[in-house]
Each structure stands twice: as structure tokens, then as C-alpha cells.
């Protein structure tokens, strides 16, 4: 039935969109402080592999794992991993005032490599099966809301996801409220727009940049965790996360730096990402073209965004620039 198929597609698009949403929200917070963190794709890899390592160690140590700890340990491990990555970026760009683009790109290369390195090592340790599968952890992360998820199509559409999916949406909404309705948000935006102004107004620019970048990095890393624990059911494959991190950065622009807009944007991009699976296409070249869609949309959006004139929709004015108070 076509209706159920559409519901199924939307639900699949949302699942695909959740890691993007984590990445986009994290990057929005970071960019609002004036830091263009292109290391987000790498951080998401590290968020994923750190979660895997945490889960692996716990599953090995506890023969009868506790459901709560199955969630908590990988979660903390993932957050710690992402935090360290974001800290590297912060120290280099904020304290040492290194070029943000170069630092970010290096961090992504590093993060992807780090993920694959530990992933490869774990694969070797698992030996015969040839893949890492943390069944118990994966199952814990995929626990759905009882009863509600069995409500037919309605349940499929709204209640068929693990808790991290709802967390992603909540984080995005909360981030939107903080940015627009609180003093902290106002100060953060000022730091990203004009650090000299913020500084002269008595705002601790360095503190805001550090906090925004680190919290943003941790949020983005959760996207990697969601991917390995929920989507792939606790399994790691090298390069499995693909280029989703870059899409997350594209969504930041698509959503004009607004976390609330990032929610539908992420689901849209998630849908484009898996469109080729849902549309029956006879030839492989047609499928390849459909696979190009997210990137084509990104390019079109970038063109459209650069033509936009409204000042509020432009990127933070000091994005990508480092700040030094006594600069003349």
C-alpha cells in the first residue's frame, strides 16, 4: 500500500536524519561562537568508535550486563572522545589562534583515521566473525517506547525510534531556545558576530568560544554514537559512517544557522540520502544519479544562500576568524 510505504520512507528518512541533526546542531552552536569547525565529520567518527570501545569493554567485563550501564558507559565514552577532539580544535584555534579551516580539516582526517584504526583493531580481536557486533548494547539503545510503538502507522511514524533520536530533537529545540531567548544565547551570538564588541561589553570571549565548541563537539559526537548503536545495531564497519559529517555541515547553511530549522532539514537530507533505495530504478546509473541528490541540493542551496540579502540570514560575521584583544 502506497500510504504505508510513504510512512515507512519518512520513518527511514528520520532515522537517517538523526545523525545529521546531531552534527548540524553541534556545528550551529560552534559556528555561533565564530568557530568554523570542519573537524565535525572526524568528531562524529570518534564519537562512534569511542562508544563502541566503551560498549565492547563493558560487554566483555560483565557476563550479565545491566541495561542501564549498557547505555551509560558507551554514552560517557562517546562524549569523552568527542570532547577531547573538540578540545584539540579549541586549543589550536582559540588559544594558539591557528587557522580554523586547516585545523578542522586535519581534525577530520585524524578522526576518521582514528575511528578506522581502533575499528580495525577491534575487528582483528573479534577474529572469526569479521565484524564487531555489540548485540546487547545495540539492543539497549534500540529499546522503543513500549505500547506506543505498536500503534500501527502512527506508532511507526512517531514512536519507532530509540531514545537518542528524541534526544536529538530535544537538543535542537533547547539549543534554539538558548540562542534566541536567553542572555547566554545573546552573548554567544555577539561573540560570533563581533568578538571585539563582546569583549568590550565584558563578555569572556575565550570562555564562550571554548564552551560552545566543546559542547557542540559533544553533541555532534552523539550523532556518531547513534549511528553505530542504533542504526547499525552495535556494529562497526570501517568508513561505515560515510560522508554524513559533511552533510551535517551543509545542513547548517541550509538551516541558516537556526537549530529549529535544522530538524526538518536533517530529515529532508536523510530522505534524499536513502531515496534510491525506495524508488525502483532499473539501471544502476539512474541510482547513482539519485544518490547524488543530497550533494546537488547542497550546491543549489549554497548558491541560493549566497544570493540571500537579509542580514539575519548571513553566517556569523566573524566566522572563521580568530580573536586577539590587543590586535592593532
Amino acid at each position, binding site marked *: 500500500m502506497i500510504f504505508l510505504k510513504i510512512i515507512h520512507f519518512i520513518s527511514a528518512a528520520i532515522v537517517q536524519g538523526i545523525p545529521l541533526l546531531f552534527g548540524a546542531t553541534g556545528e550551529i552552536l560552534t559556528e555561533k561562537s565564530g568557530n568554523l569547525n570542519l573537524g565535525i565529520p572526524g568528531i562524529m567518527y570518534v564519537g562512534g568508535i569511542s562508544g563502541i570501545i566503551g560498549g565492547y569493554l563493558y560487554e566483555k567485563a560483565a557476563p550479565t550486563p545491566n541495561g542501564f550501564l549498557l547505555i551509560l558507559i558507551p554514552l560517557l565514552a562517546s562524549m569523552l572522545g568527542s570532547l577531547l577532539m573538540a578540545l584539540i580544535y579549541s586549543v589550536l584555534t582559540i588559544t594558539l589562534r591557528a587557522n580554523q579551516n586547516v585545523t578542522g580539516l586535519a581534525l577530520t582526517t585524524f578522526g576518521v583515521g582514528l575511528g578506522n584504526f581502533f575499528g580495525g583493531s577491534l575487528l582483528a580481536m573479534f577474529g572469526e566473525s569479521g565484524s564487531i557486533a555489540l548485540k546487547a548494547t545495540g539492543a539497549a539503545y534500540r529499546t522503543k517506547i513500549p505500547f506506543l510503538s505498536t500503534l500501527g502507522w502512527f506508532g511507526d511514524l512517531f514512536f519507532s525510534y530509540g531514545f537518542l533520536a528524541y534526544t536529538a530533537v530535544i537538543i535542537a529545540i533547547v539549543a534554539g531556545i538558548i540562542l534566541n*531567548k*536567553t*542572555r547566554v544565547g*545573546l*552573548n554567544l*551570538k*555577539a561573540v560570533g*558576530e*563581533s568578538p*571585539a*564588541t*563582546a*569583549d*568590550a*561589553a*565584558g*563578555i*569572556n570571549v575565550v570562555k564562550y568560544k571554548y564552551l560552545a565548541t566543546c559542547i557542540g563537539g559533544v553533541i555532534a559526537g552523539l550523532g556518531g554514537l547513534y549511528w553505530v548503536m542504533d542504526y547499525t545495531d552495535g556494529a562497526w564497519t570501517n568508513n561505515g559512517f560515510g560522508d554524513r559529517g559533511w552533510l551535517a555541515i551543509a545542513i547548517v547553511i541550509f538551516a541558516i544557522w537556526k537549530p529549529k530549522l535544522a530538524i526538518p532539514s536533517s530529515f529532508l537530507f536523510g530522505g534524499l540520502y536513502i531515496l534510491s533505495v525506495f524508488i525502483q530504478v532499473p539501471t544502476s546509473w539512474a541510482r547513482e544519479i539519485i544518490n547524488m541528490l543530497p550533494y546537488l541540493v547542497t550546491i543549489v542551496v549554497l548558491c541560493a544562500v549566497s544570493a540571500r*540579502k537579509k*542580514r*539575519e540570514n*548571513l553566517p556569523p*560575521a566573524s566566522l572563521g576568524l580568530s580573536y586577539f*584583544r*590587543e590586535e*592593532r
Partner: protein
Amino acid sequence: MDNVAIELRGICKTFGSIKANNNVNLILYKGEILSLLGENGSGKTTLMNMISGIYYPDEGHIFIDGKEVVISSPKDAYKYKIGMIHQHFKLVDVFTAAENIVLGLEEQGRFDIKAAARKVKELCDRYGFVLDPNKKIYEMSVSEKQTVEIVKVLYRGADILVLDEPTAVLTPQETRKLFDVLRKMKEDNKAIIIITHKLHEVLAVSDRVTVLRKGETIGSVATSEATVSMLTEMMVGAKVELNIDRTEPVNPVPRLIVEDISCVNRENVRVLNDISFVANSGEILGIAGIAGSGQRELLESIAGLQHLTEGNITYIDPENGEKKNLRDMTPVQIRDLGVRLSFVPEDRLGMGLVGNMDISDNMMLRSYTKGRGVFLHKKEPATLAERIVKQLEVVTPGIDTPVRRLSGGNVQKVLVGREISSAPTVLMAAYPVRGLDINSSYLIYNLLNEQKQNGTAVIFVGEDLDVLIDLCDRIIVIGGGQITGEVDARNTTKEEIGYLMTKSNGGEQ
């Protein structure tokens, strides 16, 4: 004395090899307006930045209400009720006035921007400001932005106010309004330091004057005992002649004919409307008008940087009298026609010079097409740079210093020097003395006069009406993108020009 608001003793500050402040002493009393005078690069802004916590002094002591304090960040400055209005406004463009004003405040309770806007409104009413708290900064005029800066400082309850060249971008009317506000604040027993280059403003508004020269305190005098010549002498360290030596136009023949030109900006608003005039050789043509009336677009049209919707611009070659059309030409095409056009734009570091390049390399920007080889010829530009530094007394450690490290006035000298060095037949200068001290300003005026005597057609866009009247031969006044009048500079008054500036031909608005 318990009437002292702030006292600085023995302040020193060094940037690299530049000693910006050397053993500076300054006293500011409550309920007074103190003028801080000094040439460009004499360390006024540096000193003020140390009071407001932007810079941290290398040596010296700061006393507030008789107690020694340490101001290591702008936050500390607010704690001691010091507020600074910077020359380059420190405002977030995409925020509203109210958002900018409450920015960084750590008030108790819920964040309520509407309540803040109300409080801003009350404050404005008390001091007689006109300000819409909900207007975005990017929609504001320069004077509105300045109002926001002042209200921001007052909102934080500042008792000591520092204003760094607040009048540089204001019209005479706006300046008068600002001074009224300052006097009102003075009555409130606030202590005010004002930095300005315009000596008549110093005499009009301040109670006392402190002069800095080359980073050192020269002395303080009561304004009532001060005269213009005395203050300049203190600033410069020697007696200076403050006369503009205006000669009769030298053999004036039409050089540039502008006929009925119009153009629109990106928002499709007409910024130039049917402008016609003739610029003669050997003559200085002044352009007066309220800032943003189309001066910038007019000069850019002639320089080939604006697309005209109507009209013609014709250049008459002085050698053979040949007429050349400049409309819809790029700057390169104009140069290839053999038109030696020099342009000193308003936006020095944005359009005129590259801030991160040194003085010598900036000279090459004008002549880069001359070279034919693969490698750069650095010698010629270096010689030119040396000459400009020497002739115009540019304060710099050397010609290999990046231009952005120089103070505003010195940047301007480099730019004007370069533009004049190409022996132009048409020289356009937009606000060439903005932010320059009196000595440098007269240096620039004399350079323009020299060009006039060489037979160059000089177009001078200025804001100081006294100067326009003393320097130019003819003055055209524009308002709202239209010419509202033309006067003979030798037989006009400030009042006449001021009236023409505010008069609009009815069509617009």
C-alpha cells in the same frame, strides 16, 4: 583631592618596537569635560584603551577615587564605572539597539528584552536622545549608532566616559546635539574625556585640555586660557602656520564633464539622480553634503566602479583636447585610455590599501601592470615608499611594516601619497583628512593645492565646511543624490552651504 575621578601615573605601553605611551600622567575631575589632544599616533587611543581594559599597561598606576586599581579587562572597567565609546563602533550589526545595550550584562532574574527596551527608552527620554530600541543596528545611520553606544555606556551606570573621536562622522548639527548631551552629563557630575582633532570643538565643549605628543604628556591647560595656535604648538612641538594658501585657479579648462548621471544601489533605490557638473583643470571642486547623500557613488561612478543607468561622463585630454567617454568603463579600461585618474576612497583599508601588506607592496598595487617579467621589481616601489614616508612624515618603524599596524592618519598619508605620486590629471579625494590631526590635515591640503597648481582637476569631498570654504574654488552641494546648489567658495558662508545641504529638491522622500 576627593574630586578626582581617575588619575593615571607613569603609564607605559609598547607595541613591538613602537612606544605608544611613555610615562603618561593624566588627571580627570568629576563633573568636567577633558579634551585629550595629540597628533595621529601620539598615543591617545592607546591610553584610553588602557582605561577601558582593552590593553593592559606595561607599567604605571591607575587610581580611581583615590584608590589604586587594576583594570585587566573591559569587565573590570565596567566594575569601576568606566565606559568607552570607541572610534570604530563596537556594536553587533544584526542585533537591535536594546540587545546591544544589555549585551554582556549579568543582571539577576529572567532575561527580558522588552523590559530592557523600556529601560532604554526611559534613559533616552532623560537625556533627550531619539532612539528606537527595537531598530537593528545595520538599519541605523552613523549618528544613531553613536547614540546607541552612548546609551549603552549610560545604561551600565558609567561615571567616567571616554569618547574617541565621536564627531569625526557627524554633521555639524549632530555634533551640536552631542555636545548638549555631554554638557547634560557633566551637570550629572560625570567625568568625560573626549578625543577630537577639531580644535574649535575642543574650545567649544571642554573645560580643560591635556596634550600628548609622541606618547608623552606635554601638559594641561584650562580651555578658557587656551587658543588654537597655542594648542597646535603644544601638539606639534613647534609653531605651525595654519593657513590654506589658496591661489587663483590655474588656467581652468574643462577636464571632466559629468552630464545627467543617475544610478541605483543594490536595493534599487536611486542614489544619484541627474547629477551634472564640470570639473576644471587647475581648480579644486568641493563637494559638500550630509554623509551618505551620494558622494561615494558619485566618485565611484567617475572611477568606473558604479553602473550608471543614465548620463554621460566625458574626459577631455589635456594634451590634444580629445574627448573620451568614461561611461561603462572599468578602471583598467579608463587607465588604458590614457586617463590619469587618482582616487582616494573613503574606505582606506577596504578599497585603497591592503592592510596586511607593507607600505612598499601597497605602492605596487597601482603599478603592477607595468612590469613585464615574472619577478617583481621591488626597488622602485620601495623608493617611492621611502619618499612618501619622509615627505609626509608617516610615523612607522619602516616601509616593511604592514599598513594595518599604522594609526588611521598615517594610513591615510600613505594612500594619498601613493595616489598623488602618479601625477594624475584628475584627483578625487573623499574625506582625505578624516581622523587626521591638524598638522597632517594641513599637509594634505597643501598637497591638494600643489596638485591644483600642476593643472590637475581636483575633486574634494569634505565634511568640515570651514575647510571646504577655505580650500576650494567652487563647491557643489548634494542632498539625497541630487545637486542642491553650486556656490563660489570665495563668496559663500557656512550657513548658505548648510542650508543647501539640508534642502532637498522635493523629488525624493
